[in-house]
């Protein structure tokens, strides 16, 4: 009940801020159009192939990154800044319900963005022959990882809404670039490829791109395993961070 209530509340706040809602839909569409155009021109691909390649990295590497990681940091920080979190401390809502509520709300936003991206890609003739089920699992794990990371950053580092922008600009954008979300990783020089190996966004991108485009499992499994471990670590990290914040701020 608490989980659903938290998720509904976040979505309701988003609906009230209509402009943000529209922008969350427009942003991934722009990224997809740009990524696909670059790929089509520079890699000499057909339009359908370009959209096929651009879609997975746009979903997990760009859209979900900003909405789920940036969004969950913003949710937690706004709650701390407005101090409404103190009202939640007074209620029987558990930390787990709160986390799951944020996860659920951002999953809904992420699913919406995924549908927008897929609709555009399908419109331009892209075909995805990989496992639908595994793709959904990868998207869910990505959201879980991003929300977990958002909890760590939102409870430990960002204190004000302005900090969210600074954090995303400092850590988020380089991670996205290095993850191949804008420029395909196979175009990187070797030194950046070596660095990208340690970047979770790279593995998330590779796992979904491989799965949606029916790459053999042997080539995807490594990235998938990395993603599973990363998601577990981030959820645990998020949980511990939330509890630390709870001990620090649990008073009126």
């Amino acid at each position, binding site marked *: *009940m*608490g989980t*659903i*209530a*938290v998720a*509904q*509340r976040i979505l*309701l*706040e988003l609906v*009230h*801020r209509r402009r943000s809602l529209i922008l969350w839909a427009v942003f991934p569409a722009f990224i997809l159009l740009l990524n696909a155009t670059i790929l089509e021109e520079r890699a000499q691909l057909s339009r359908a192939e370009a959209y096929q390649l651009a879609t997975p990295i746009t979903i997990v590497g760009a859209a979900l990154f900003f909405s789920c990681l940036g969004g969950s940091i913003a949710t937690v920080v706004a709650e701390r800044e*407005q*101090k*409404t979190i*103190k*009202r*939640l*401390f*007074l*209620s*029987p*809502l558990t930390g787990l319900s709160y986390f799951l509520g944020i996860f659920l709300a951002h999953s809904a936003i992420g699913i919406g963005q995924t549908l927008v991206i897929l609709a555009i890609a399908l419109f331009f003739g892209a075909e995805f022959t990989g496992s639908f089920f595994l793709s959904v699992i990868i998207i869910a794990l990505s959201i879980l990882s991003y929300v977990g990371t958002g909890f760590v950053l939102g409870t430990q580092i960002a204190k004000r809404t302005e900090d969210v922008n600074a954090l995303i600009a400092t850590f988020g954008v380089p991670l996205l670039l290095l993850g191949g979300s804008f420029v395909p990783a196979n175009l990187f020089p070797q030194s950046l490829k070596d660095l990208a190996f340690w970047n979770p966004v790279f593995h998330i991108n590779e796992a979904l791109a491989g799965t949606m485009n029916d790459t053999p499992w042997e080539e995807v499994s490594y990235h998938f395993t990395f993603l599973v471990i990363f998601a577990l670590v981030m959820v645990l990290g998020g949980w511990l961070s939330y509890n630390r914040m709870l001990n620090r701020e*649990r*008073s*009126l």
Partner: protein
Amino acid sequence: MLKLEGISKKFNDRQVLSDLNLTIELATVYGLLGPNGAGKTTAINIICNLLKPDRGLVLFNDRPITNQTKALIGVAPQQNLLYQTLTCGENLRFFGKIYGISGKKLSQRVEECLELVGLTDRVNSPAETLSGGMQRRLSMAIALIHQPKLIILDEPTTGLDLEARYQMWEVIRHLQRSGTTILITTHLLDEVERLCHKIGILQQGKLVAEGTLAQLRQRIQAKEIITIQSPQEQAVIDRGKSLGLVSRHYGEATSFWIPELLDLKQILEYFDGIAIDGISRHPVSLEHIYLEVMGYI
């Protein structure tokens, strides 16, 4: 009944609460007074199970306060703490759901709470569009949504205009009449006088006085207090002393505790021969008691 038994709490080297014992009877209003830093908010945090005391026990209806008993308590904190973009109805529905209320019962509670605090016509107004007084009332409605047995109101009318204060007092009286136990912390002594059945005064973490207003009045051996405004203030003080009256300076001029009710002629006779600009007579109020207990004068 809410019972605090021997509560002590230390932050680093600072003793914030020291062996605090306090009992609030069911369906009564208890006013907890004290200056900033006296330990009022720490006491509230402990009652709400947000802080653990170093020593002592908090019992509500003979059950220890735990996370499981949080639903028994409703709190309207000093700051309103509302979701600003949500409407009044949405704020209430959200908190109702957090407390496990749903369906028709939730809709009914939202209506009842809005009606109680006089915000029925603002059900669809975003919280950010409400005036300060209305936000305060919405905060109160949120504290009531789950029908708590104990309500804690931290500075419930601070910053409100007179009309809004009167409305808030009416809500508090209504809640008490309907059987809710209420703990109020405030700096506004007239509010405590009007609303509270029992009053406790905290100073440096210790309960230095407790009782009904009538009981606390006994701390001042006077039927009334007179204030004399005179250009010959020292002469007034000396005359009072010679008459065996206790003198105090409550800010504006010299005042005396008068053990028996006197008429104006008798008062004038007391200060015969001294130039008097004005005489005012006051009943013994909580303000006098508070200043006495705190040793401010």
